């Protein structure tokens, strides 16, 4: 028995960064918005305060802020010949739950895409010839950098982003990233501090001819009011960022930056404990009529709406499309269909640097986006002619999350437990830093998302099934960029030892067990061709014009950066077109 509720203008599935941004912009454009959130209500001021929040066991290990796998998980296999088994416990990536979504437990590393990231296929084809993309499903986003720039810029201001601009209206600036695209304004706040090991990294990188700069950070560096009127405080470098909420109100999050200045709006309604089962379609299948969800008391409710916005985590947006019959599922045999196509991830590696005793890294001090970074081997900032791969990554000496359960640096050849291990942990904990290689991930025909034939979630719906392994392209890329990181590490002063690790090392299968990064992308990608994209370049579904899709599921392949900046640029781009064009005259904004 499904109860039909009064109709609303817009129903928004999910209350993370994109969902609350959509609600803010659309509510203020006169649209009555109902936001449905699977998890509970919470607030940065009362839910994430220190010292209780600084509980590594509860939040970082037992993952209190993350999705509950008994209710919602997916199945996984490395390739189509295997039987997918459920990801029974969280590991490689950590989708969020509750108000604010994964935007609560992020690090705050806030990047823009490179201009060439957005037209990756045409850029590489023009520079190197078509052959360089053989075997890959790499494609253009259909939106170019100049179109996204105002929206990327706006979100940087929403977050009070800290950094040094490298390129304001074409003027190169000292200390900024010389590779970044033209920006209309500098960052709103000065960069974060740097630690002694980061200063050593910076000096060495400069000596080697590279261009180090402070990672752009949504851990803000001074008292700040954003364009919505929300207030942020300066970061205290407490070291509890990733996997934690920020009770200091110093890490920009969707609650502080948007919800607080939206919650009393007459056009806004948030319903927590609302698990959306499916998007309902009209009799002719051309449009969506609303969504059906289960509330906290187990009742099924139908929320009719003129417009449906999908703002769940990247993977769950794709799941919702598949269980709702939105669009056409991708078939890896025929190559037909688009929903679930072009799933990709992020390719992570690191060089581990062990210092002499007179260099104090004090790794428990830090912030999620406290990084000293070079972009010389990211995107197409370096010549790929003879390398045998496309893409790249940034190399960053990060001082982020040095808490002792997860962080026990030991030099090469240390046993993994026992007396020598214990001695090595004790000697190195305060004198170590990781240099991360945060690399791109190309899409390939054999990596995709669909529905599992066997396993179901708590609501009886089939689990999403992920078929993924690192493409050879990315293994080569990661190995190459890691070798550059290792070279910097070995050239640094006061270094006793260096070791490396590579999640995409040759011969190693991608595993859902060790944490890598919560940057799952693709599966419902943006583009200009309905045979290779789920939504048009405005984020509107080709097959159902009143369904708009948000988030990293739109990325046709993953760039070398963290996804929040690019996906929020896309979100504000989509919202701009909804407000200025679509809502007054609902229709397909592009011809299929």
């Amino acid at each position, binding site marked *: 028995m499904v109860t039909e509720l009064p109709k609303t203008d817009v129903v928004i599935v999910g209350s993370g960064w994109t969902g609350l941004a959509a609600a803010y912009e659309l509510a203020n454009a006169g649209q009555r918005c109902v936001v449905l959130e699977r998890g509970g209500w919470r607030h940065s001021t009362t839910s994430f305060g220190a010292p209780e929040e600084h*509980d590594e066991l509860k939040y970082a290990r037992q993952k209190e802020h993350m999705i509950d796998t008994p209710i919602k998980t997916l199945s996984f296999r490395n390739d189509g010949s295997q039987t997918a088994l459920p990801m029974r416990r969280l590991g490689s990536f950590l989708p969020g739950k509750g108000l604010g979504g994964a935007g609560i437990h992020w690090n705050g590393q806030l990047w823009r895409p490179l201009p060439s990231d957005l037209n990756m296929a045409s850029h590489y084809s023009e520079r190197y010839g078509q052959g360089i993309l053989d075997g890959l499903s790499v494609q253009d986003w259909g939106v170019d950098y100049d179109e996204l720039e105002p929206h990327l810029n706006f979100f940087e201001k929403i977050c009070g982003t800290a950094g040094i601009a490298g390129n304001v209206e074409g003027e190169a600036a000292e200390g900024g990233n010389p590779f970044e695209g033209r920006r209309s304004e500098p960052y709103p706040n000065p960069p974060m501090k740097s630690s002694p090991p980061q200063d050593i990294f910076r000096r060495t990188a400069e000596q080697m001819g590279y261009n180090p700069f402070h990672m752009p950070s949504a851990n803000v560096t001074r008292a700040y009011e954003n364009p919505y009127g929300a207030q942020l405080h300066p970061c205290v470098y407490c070291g509890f960022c990733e996997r934690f909420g920020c009770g200091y109100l110093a890490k920009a999050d969707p609650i502080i930056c948007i919800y607080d200045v939206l919650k009393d709006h007459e056009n806004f309604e948030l319903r927590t404990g609302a698990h959306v089962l499916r998007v309902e379609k009209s009799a002719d299948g051309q449009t969506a009529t609303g969504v059906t969800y289960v509330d906290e008391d187990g009742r099924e409710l139908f929320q009719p709406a003129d417009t449906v916005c999908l703002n769940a985590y990247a993977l769950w947006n794709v799941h919702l499309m598949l269980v709702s019959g939105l669009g056409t599922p991708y078939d890896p045999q025929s190559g037909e269909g688009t929903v679930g196509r072009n799933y990709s991830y992020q390719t992570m590696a690191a060089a581990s640097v062990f210092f002499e005793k007179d260099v104090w890294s004090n790794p*428990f001090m830090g912030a999620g986006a406290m990084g000293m970074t070079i972009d010389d081997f990211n995107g197409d900032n370096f010549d790929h002619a003879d390398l045998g791969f496309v893409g790249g990554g940034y190399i960053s000496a990060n001082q982020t999350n040095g808490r002792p359960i997860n962080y026990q640096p030991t030099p090469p050849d240390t046993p993994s*437990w026992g007396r020598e291990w214990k001695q090595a942990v004790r000697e190195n904990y305060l004198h170590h830093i990781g240099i991360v290689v945060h690399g791109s991930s190309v899409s390939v025909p054999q990596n995709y998302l669909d529905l599992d034939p066997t396993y179901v979630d708590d609501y009886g719906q089939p689990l999403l099934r992920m078929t993924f392994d690192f493409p050879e392209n990315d293994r080569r890329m990661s190995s190459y960029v890691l070798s550059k990181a290792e070279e910097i590490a070995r050239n640094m002063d006061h270094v006793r030892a260096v070791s490396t690790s590579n999640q995409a090392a040759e011969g190693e299968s991608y595993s859902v067990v060790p944490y890598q990064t919560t940057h799952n992308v693709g599966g419902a990608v943006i583009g200009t061709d309905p045979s290779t994209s789920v939504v048009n370049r405005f984020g509107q579904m080709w097959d159902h014009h009143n369904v708009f899709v948000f988030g990293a599921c739109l990325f046709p392949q993953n760039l070398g950066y963290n996804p929040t900046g690019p996906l929020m640029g896309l979100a504000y781009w989509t919202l701009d077109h909804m407000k200025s064009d679509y809502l007054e005259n609902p229709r397909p904004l592009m011809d299929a």
Partner: protein
Amino acid sequence: MTQFSRRAILKQMGAVGLASAVPQTLAAQNPYAELDGVPWFFLSDTEARFLSAFCDVLIPEDEFPSATQAGVIDFIDLQLATGYGQGAGLYMKGPFRRGTLSQGYQAEMVPAALIRNFIAAAIEQGGDLAAADAEQREGVVSALSETEDSFGGAQGRVVFEELWALTKEGYFGDPLYGGNRDYAGWEMVGFPGAHAYYLEFVDKNVPYRAPPKGIGHIPGTNRSASLGASAMMKKEG
């Protein structure tokens, strides 16, 4: 300092009935005897003795406490009795199959049962670990850490990883959970704990000397300084 002892934890957790049954003192007959006769939430005495021997191979005593001395067995006992051990955060719908290593946990039982079965199987095959000498103990633990053989429901190395993760959580987690007794783990590495404000320190190349303090706001002693975890700390202290 005894505020994080097993008894204190029992009381904190509201298990007054259990706690009041604890004998006041027990003569220590061997390194594990102090565990005898103390009511556990989940473990049997035999299991506790096994885990104590097992975890002390992983983190043995030196200038800093062993796993058992730091309360790791109390920690594991509590974890097995509560959320983690009972399957919180674990999808438990079937069918169950032995997967690839990259597919992660696929055991048909919750971690508490898995670990119980593992201990029983390990004792059945290898005898009483607590009674073995140091070299034998290391050999047994090392073998268990590598074996693909099933030990009570999953590959030995899979259960080993569960126990190793628990041991580190118990040694380095907040003392609220019964481990890291007297901040043993935090003192050892120099981690100051939950009260964290480093704006004035983060860019300085100096040791940070504040003694550890957990969520409960009980100051530690900064023993690591006097034990030479860092010579510079001592010199400047």
